[in-house]
């Protein structure tokens, strides 16, 4: 058998086996919207850990983190820093959101906005925004999958066919298994990913360099500016690093997929314990950096975009096909499992908030579950279509996802702590933030002066608008109190 057949067969068996395992695990669960979207609010610490970790650490994180370490050196460390701060913020934020969610029976982030600010229209708008922001994020996972399948196929096949098949299989899987299915699939995914990064981040550097110290000595000699941040105010400078870490840490849990995980928790203490222990999972990212630095020395000279595949390429060149197969299989699951959570998060917002609350469609339990399932497939096809047509401009789209989704954070926080904020203030704030992002985006002013992150500027505009509007027109009607 050719190495491509061996490697691709392993990928196919692992992905197929994971889907079968997860389907088997949920076979007795009757699906109503609460089961399908937030797993009946029943998850304890273990499943929640898997689900949150599954959504945060995606294929793009792994390939991108190694690629950034390869191409930009220390700037990549921001990925490690923002997650850590994100969990500290999450320790306080997530239990508070979950308690409101339980008391008020919320299903989506659109619900949260509609309930807290007493405006169905705001819920519709937030639901629609979430849906649109998710499309590029799903699309990114497909690019990650393409890189892995191209390498596992030893460049002999058109990986787009494999990506399309794998992704549609995953969409059908979400169609039938819902959030519980995603959590079970995460069990397999996390185990394999852990094995893969230990191999890539421990075995690989030690085989080629003997020790991490020796590896960093070599990196420092070959690229003297690589292990620290540049002081001059520009892209990837110290100021860029600090502002980007601030923005991404604040927006860490703003996505609709995170809301589904938060609402699936049994109670607030489960979320607190998770926030305490999740930073440990970040060790995985540290190992990926090691793999990226190792690749920089072993296969030098790759361009920034191409460097995303650097460490997988090292594995392909120096290890047998079955190792390549298992690494690519772990990576494929790391693309597909989070994508399944994203599909579910986007679809539930569209159906519950836009179709249901906005147009009065699919409001019964059975109709809503069915409509959410159909929306999962529609979102999958939309993302796949977008990816097949525009696969080159994705990094811009990712930027837009993060900068855009973070604009929902003032609403999530003010909705918990400041009763005088009304729907108009939040809506105006989101609009102001998004306009700021769009203006800078289309003026091509990124990097901005001094390398300040544009999303953080937009977030500042957002908060100023919310506070100003609230001080001038404070909300008069009472917010529903949360018991407990």
């Amino acid at each position, binding site marked *: 058998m050719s190495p491509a057949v061996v490697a691709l067969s392993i990928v196919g068996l692992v992905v197929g086996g994971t889907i079968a395992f997860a389907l088997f695990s949920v076979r007795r669960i009757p699906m109503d919207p609460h089961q399908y979207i937030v797993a009946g609010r029943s998850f304890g610490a273990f499943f929640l850990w898997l689900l949150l970790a599954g959504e945060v650490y995606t294929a793009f994180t792994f390939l991108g983190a190694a690629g950034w370490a390869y191409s930009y050196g220390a700037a990549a460390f921001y990925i490690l820093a923002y997650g850590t701060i994100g969990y*500290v913020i999450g320790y306080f934020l997530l239990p508070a959101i979950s308690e409101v969610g339980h008391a008020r029976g919320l299903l989506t982030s659109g619900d949260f906005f509609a309930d807290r600010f007493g405006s169905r229209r705001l819920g519709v708008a937030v639901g629609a925004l979430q849906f649109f922001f998710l499309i590029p994020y799903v699309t990114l996972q497909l690019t990650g999958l393409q890189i892995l399948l191209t390498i596992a196929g030893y460049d002999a096949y058109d990986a787009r066919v494999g990506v399309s098949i794998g992704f549609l299989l995953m969409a059908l899987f979400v169609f039938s298994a819902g959030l519980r299915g995603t959590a079970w699939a995460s069990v397999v995914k996390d185990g394999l990913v852990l094995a893969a990064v230990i191999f890539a981040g421990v075995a690989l550097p030690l085989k080629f360099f003997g020790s991490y110290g020796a590896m960093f000595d070599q990196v420092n000699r070959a690229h003297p500016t690589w292990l620290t941040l540049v002081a001059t105010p520009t892209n990837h400078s110290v100021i860029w690093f600090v502002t980007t870490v601030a923005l991404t840490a604040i927006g860490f849990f703003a996505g609709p997929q995170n809301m589904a995980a938060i609402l699936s928790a049994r109670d607030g203490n489960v979320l607190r314990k998770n926030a305490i222990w999740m930073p440990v999972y970040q060790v995985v990212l540290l190992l990926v950096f090691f793999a990226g630095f190792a690749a920089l020395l072993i296969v030098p000279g790759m361009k920034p975009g191409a460097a995303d595949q650097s460490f997988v390429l090292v594995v392909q060149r120096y290890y047998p096909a079955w190792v390549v197969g298992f690494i690519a299989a772990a990576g494929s699951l790391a693309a597909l499992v989070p994508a399944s959570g994203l599909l579910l998060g986007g679809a539930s917002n569209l159906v519950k908030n836009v179709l249901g609350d906005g147009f009065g469609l699919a409001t019964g339990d059975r109709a809503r579950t069915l409509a959410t399932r159909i929306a999962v497939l529609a979102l999958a096809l939309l993302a796949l279509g977008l990816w097949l047509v525009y696969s080159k401009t994705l990094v811009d789209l990712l930027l837009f996802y993060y900068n855009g989704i973070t604009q929902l954070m003032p609403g999530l926080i003010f909705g918990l702590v400041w009763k005088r904020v009304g729907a108009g203030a939040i809506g105006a704030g989101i609009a102001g933030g998004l306009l700021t992002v769009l203006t800078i985006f289309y003026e091509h002013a990124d990097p901005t002066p001094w390398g300040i992150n544009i999303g953080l500027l937009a977030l500042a505009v957002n908060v100023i608008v919310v506070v100003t509007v609230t001080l001038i027109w404070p909300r008069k009607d009472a917010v529903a109190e949360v018991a407990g």
Partner: protein
Amino acid sequence: MTKSARALRLVLACVVPAMLTIGIPFANRVEPRIFGLPFLLAWIVLGMILAPVSLSLIYRLEGRRHT
């Protein structure tokens, strides 16, 4: 919670975020190396290790809540 417990909680909550944002300009150097890692990376890893420590101290301070 008492007033001093609240203050302690605030300090504990701010240590890691401060290390990884305003602390970065001061940690931006290669030497001294810690276990072979460049100092900047070791500093960020230290923050990553301290996060569970500070959060579990806060958890103890708050006690188990009724939810």
